[in-house]
């Protein structure tokens, strides 16, 4: 019995190590996607404002302000995911952003509004709705996985 114990521990360590590696890889990948998407939009905020305006959900005066703010938030959260800093906050914000993006796309579709998603600036001009949703679904799944498996910060106070 005593001889079997170290083998089980080794397996556990390898198992834990692999999951940690998967989590890090997913965080870096998801972070890179947000940084890339943010940089593309930062380069042309007016075009991103037009993409937001196409959804016909909020007035231009509000959308154009979001267009200047959201890309920087994406870049910041992406960097936080890549460098494993403020992870819980970055995950909460990015999951929220993804839910808003997917919700807005489905809302537009339900109202017969044909939109270019604008997720990756002009690079996503030819992205179909299906691919848009598949891409968003994959990113959201990775973020939710990270949310449930990352080390939680201590509660306030």
């Amino acid at each position: 019995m005593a001889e079997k114990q170290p083998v089980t521990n080794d397996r556990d360590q390898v198992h834990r190590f692999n999951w940690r590696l998967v989590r890090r890889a997913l965080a870096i990948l998801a972070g890179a996607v947000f940084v890339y998407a943010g940089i593309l939009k930062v380069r042309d905020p007016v075009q991103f404002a037009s993409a937001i305006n196409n959804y016909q959900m909020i007035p231009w005066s509000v959308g154009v302000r979001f267009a200047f703010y959201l890309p920087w938030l994406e870049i910041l959260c992406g960097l936080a995911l890549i460098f494993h800093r403020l992870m819980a906050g970055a995950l909460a914000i990015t999951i929220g952003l993804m839910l808003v993006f997917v919700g807005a796309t489905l809302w537009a579709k339900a109202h017969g509004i044909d939109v270019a998603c604008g997720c990756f600036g002009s690079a996503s001009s030819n992205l179909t709705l299906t691919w848009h949703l598949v891409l968003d679904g994959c990113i959201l799944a990775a973020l939710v996985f990270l949310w449930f498996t990352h080390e939680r910060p201590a509660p306030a106070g």
Partner: protein
Amino acid sequence: MPLSLVRQVLLLLGLAFLPAIGQAVYYRGATSWQHPPVDSAPVSVAQAKDWGDAALWIDARAEEQFAGGHVPGAMLLNEDDWNTLLPKVLAVWSPGRKLVVYCSRQTCNASHEVAERLRNEAGLKNVFVLQGGWEEWQKNNP
């Protein structure tokens, strides 16, 4: 000691404001904050076809897509080869002639971008964007 979730969220939301405000100040005179910029007027396939020779069709897609099929008489003009292709378009265009720009489908942006550059950089008027793009043209011309 790690920050709580709420503090992390507030910190990230707050930090993002700094570069955003800087960029907004930089762009303050270059964008409209109250109304969207004037876009090229949309035109349907049927309406554009009615214009006949008064319309000059502009294909804003990639060269490979253009080679795979395009509106008869259309000229290729995309942002990749803008400087090479624009003089060819201007050589054919004449004052009073309408420009109908199209890309792959309704959701693509290339036609809007090319139309905007034709208005702003080439100084052309009567620039229209084809609703539904090449996809819609094919549906109407099987």
